[in-house]
């Protein structure tokens, strides 16, 4: 019995056996005399003069956005519509056991910014976000080639994104997100299929990325609201593989009664 268990454990662990380059000096980053990364060095720039956002950024962290995206805002700043308030109340009453992330589902946008870590790869025509999330590896394509956002897109977990520069700020607009999303876990702020997310990224210095997230969702909130934070750089490491294989084994320890169905997004109100 124990031998079988050991064999299973070995098999399961082998999927994560390659630590890749968990601790490997990142080439080309400014360093102090002791060899440590100089995280307060000036933000790098690309040959075209635009800030270079490249690097691995820690989304999960002390900002607490994972639990409550609106934690630094006044309740009056985040006024839910009756539809959204009903959904939020049910989720919170059930102690947020229904959070899709707990079932290894994608976190959506902008919640993916507060889950684990991600790498930004910047090219002239698109900026790519590679996410190493505990619910799997994901990517976002933020196009900067001048294309418009799609009209009436097929709803998607991570939506559709285009980007532009506003001075030194990289502004990302995202639409086409699926109904039923969670913006955070403890407060379980809902959003609708009409959510339009604006992320404003500004690299303050080499080691810090300022991020302002604006939630514009007329079906769920009376007015747009913005959460601001600063994400730290993760130097001298790389992204790791992450998949939800054998996730069902984690559910053996969780007995969650199915939640009552949530009402779908209502029609767009006049604003």
């Amino acid at each position, binding site marked *: 019995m*124990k031998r079988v*268990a*050991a064999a*299973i*454990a070995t098999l*399961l*662990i*082998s*999927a*994560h*056996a390659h*630590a890749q380059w*968990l601790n490997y000096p990142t080439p080309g980053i400014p360093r102090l005399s002791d060899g440590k990364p100089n995280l307060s060095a000036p933000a790098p720039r690309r040959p075209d003069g635009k800030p270079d956002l490249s690097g691995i950024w820690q989304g*999960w*962290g*002390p900002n607490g956005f*994972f*639990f409550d995206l609106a934690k630094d805002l006044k309740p009056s700043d985040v006024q839910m519509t009756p539809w959204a308030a009903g959904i939020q109340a049910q989720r919170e009453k*059930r*102690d*947020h*056991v229904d*959070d899709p*992330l*707990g079932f*290894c589902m994608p976190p959506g946008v902008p919640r993916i910014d507060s889950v*684990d870590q991600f790498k930004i790869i910047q090219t002239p025509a698109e900026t790519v976000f590679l996410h*190493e999330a*505990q*619910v*799997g590896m994901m990517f976002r394509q933020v196009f900067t080639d001048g294309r418009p956002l799609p009209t009436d897109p097929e709803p998607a977990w991570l939506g559709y994104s285009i980007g532009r520069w506003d001075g030194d700020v990289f502004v990302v607009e995202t639409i086409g997100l699926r109904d039923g999303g969670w913006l955070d*876990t*403890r407060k379980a702020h809902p959003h609708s299929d009409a959510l339009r997310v604006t992320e404003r990224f500004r690299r303050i210095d080499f080691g810090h990325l300022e991020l302002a997230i604006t939630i514009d969702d007329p079906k769920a909130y009376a007015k747009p609201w913005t959460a601001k934070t600063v994400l730290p750089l993760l130097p001298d*490491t790389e992204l*790791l593989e*992450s*998949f*939800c*294989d*054998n*996730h069902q*084994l*984690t559910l053996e*320890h*969780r*007995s969650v009664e199915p939640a009552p169905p949530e009402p779908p997004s209502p029609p767009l109100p006049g604003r």
Partner: protein
Amino acid sequence: MARVLALITAVAATTAPLSAHHSFSAEFDVTKPFKLTGVVTKVQWLNPHTFFYIDVTDEKSGKVTNWAFEMGNPNALMRAGWTRNTMKVGDTVSVEGSLARDGTPYGNARVVILTATGQRLFAGSSQGQP
């Protein structure tokens, strides 16, 4: 030999939790801290949470109970210094954390102590977050 240690051992969590994809308070009772020692029988590196199991022998009755413990996600553990060889089947370990509310032999691990070396490892508990 595996043995049950003191059940009530309040240990201050000094490190920020690595992860909490689901409700800690719904599943675990922070007012029920524990410290258990036993022999590892299974390790499952799973997303979004790692699990491991230990056989705990009751000192008085000799009864063996297989306990399950939840930890943070595998990559968070690796980034905190764990490797696949850190805790192996057959190792004796002590575990500190919070017990499941439902009374089953299940808990949320906050710290794993390797008996052989005394090394204390942060287990990526979601405790401290509502």
